[in-house]
């Protein structure tokens, strides 16, 4: 019996389907020549769960994030994603068209630098509406309505809808990038240092907004950060990386309050001293 058949049978019998991981990463490795990007990383991500990947600069966080979000082909290892029909698919065995469709509908990717995730020369409304148009929405009024609604959800005034992001502050650009990703109501969003380039006060506001959206939408998130405070605020669980390998993993509060690996202890204490 396939996964889909099993789920259908359970549904018919009125039995709630058992919760299964949304994303399953197994023995993922990426090398750059002789240098290790990330090595032998395995974890599950559950629906609605926020996982933080932390570690110092150069520890392999971005490499890992790009490998699991299909933006960088791993050297070995697998990534399985549970599609909306309940079937788990190996993202590197999918047809490219299907993978790209997944990336712009069921997934989101928030770049550290909003310029990498926005079209700077089209309006905020078109930036948010692009994904809707990409999946076949052909009603201007509806697309614009959805764009305005999403701008409001990320606290951007409706009267900015026709302005290009070039005229936006760093914080606004980042919020626009988030709206652009969320408009198709993805189930999984990847974020690489989403508050990285921002002033401290702007960071706090953005984190607050993100926290609200993640819980309202029941989003699963994999967020890369070198900032343990960001991990504390956003994530349920975290993995700590060093030299491309996972050296500790667990519930966020447990790892931060009771770090086991000596390296994590160092990391946590150095943060506390700041």
């Amino acid at each position: 019996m396939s996964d889909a058949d099993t789920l259908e049978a359970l549904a018919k019998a009125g039995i709630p389907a058992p919760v299964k991981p949304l994303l399953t990463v197994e023995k993922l490795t990426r090398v750059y020549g002789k240098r290790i990007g990330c090595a032998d990383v395995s974890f599950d991500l559950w629906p609605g769960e926020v996982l933080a990947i932390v570690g110092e600069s150069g520890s392999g966080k971005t490499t890992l994030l790009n490998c699991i979000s299909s933006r960088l082909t791993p050297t070995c290892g697998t990534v399985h994603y549970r599609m909306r029909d309940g079937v788990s698919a190996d993202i590197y065995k999918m047809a490219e068209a299907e993978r790209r469709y997944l990336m712009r509908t069921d997934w989101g990717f928030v770049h550290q630098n909003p310029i990498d995730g926005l079209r700077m020369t089209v309006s905020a409304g078109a930036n948010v509406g692009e994904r809707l148009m990409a999946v076949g929405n052909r009603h201007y009024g509806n697309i614009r309505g959805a764009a305005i609604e999403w701008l409001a959800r990320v606290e951007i005034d409706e009267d900015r809808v026709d302005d290009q992001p070039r005229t936006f502050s760093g914080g606004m650009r980042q919020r626009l990038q988030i709206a652009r990703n969320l408009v198709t109501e993805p189930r999984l969003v990847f974020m690489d240092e989403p508050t990285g380039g921002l002033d401290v006060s702007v960071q706090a506001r953005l984190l607050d907004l993100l926290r609200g959206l993640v819980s309202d939408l029941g989003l699963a998130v994999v967020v890369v950060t070198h900032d343990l405070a960001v991990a504390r605020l956003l994530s349920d669980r975290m993995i700590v990386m060093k030299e491309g390998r996972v050296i500790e993993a667990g519930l966020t509060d447990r790892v931060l309050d009771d770090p086991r690996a000596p390296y994590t202890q160092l990391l946590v204490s150095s943060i506390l001293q700041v």
Partner: protein
Amino acid sequence: MTAPMTETNTQNLASYNFAYLDEQTKRMIRRAILKGIAIPGYQVPFASREMPMPYGWGTGGVQVTAAIIGRDDVLKVIDQGADDTTNAVSIRAFFAKTAGVATTTATPDATIIQTRHRIPETPLHAGQVLVYQVPIPEPLRFLEPRETETRKMHALEEYGLMHVKLYEDIARNGRIATTYAYPVKVEGRYVMDPSPTPKFDNPKMHQSEALQLFGAGREKRIYAVPPHTNVVSLDFEDHPFEIQHFTEPCALCGAEQVYLDEVVLDDKGGRMFVCSDTHHCESRRAEGHRGALLGDEPVVEKEAAI
């Protein structure tokens, strides 16, 4: 602008192969054309050759014409609808010289019509070939400059960006303000740039009796729309595609439902609107039609006589 060919190099052309290009090059171009016909709207790369004229003069169209023309063909060349501009006259002279073919200005008499930026008003018939000179063949280029990416978008039918452009148009102007090079979807598959023809001409591409070939010389691309192919202009449900409408008929021949050019008459703001298709205008006048500017001539008598 300078003329594309000097007197002397026109003389020298006589020693070149039939229609200027060598047979091997023509075969290569024909293969690209055949592939284009087999995959309507798909841009086929080809090894564009240097022609004895600058790129802006339609070298892509000239190479396509050179590859398909035979001794019995009758060639018409238009530039913005006119047979008598320098560009049109030069290209016509080029093929008269290098291929010895007959030329014409009459749309129905031509077997090949090479065009820059217009489709003739007279409906084309089966057996005719319309060859477009194309400056920029890639409709996605304006928002996605990376060739690798635009190719992937075509391959995977990812055309959301085309609507982003139309969205921006409406957001800025309250309506779709694109008036030329208006993107179309060919046979429900490839999005294509119809070259800088006015959108007025887009409906003529749909289910045409004629074969339509597009040549971009500098960009080294050929694409095609075979006869009886669906060509649909992109739009939104609540902002449907519309052609331009002109409030007055042609000042010379009185034609309505044709594409008009504005002509400035004097420096006091005097202007008139006349057919952009010079052959269409002339043949209507020859039939006795008179526009407002020629109002005192036969048309009244003729109508009275009926």
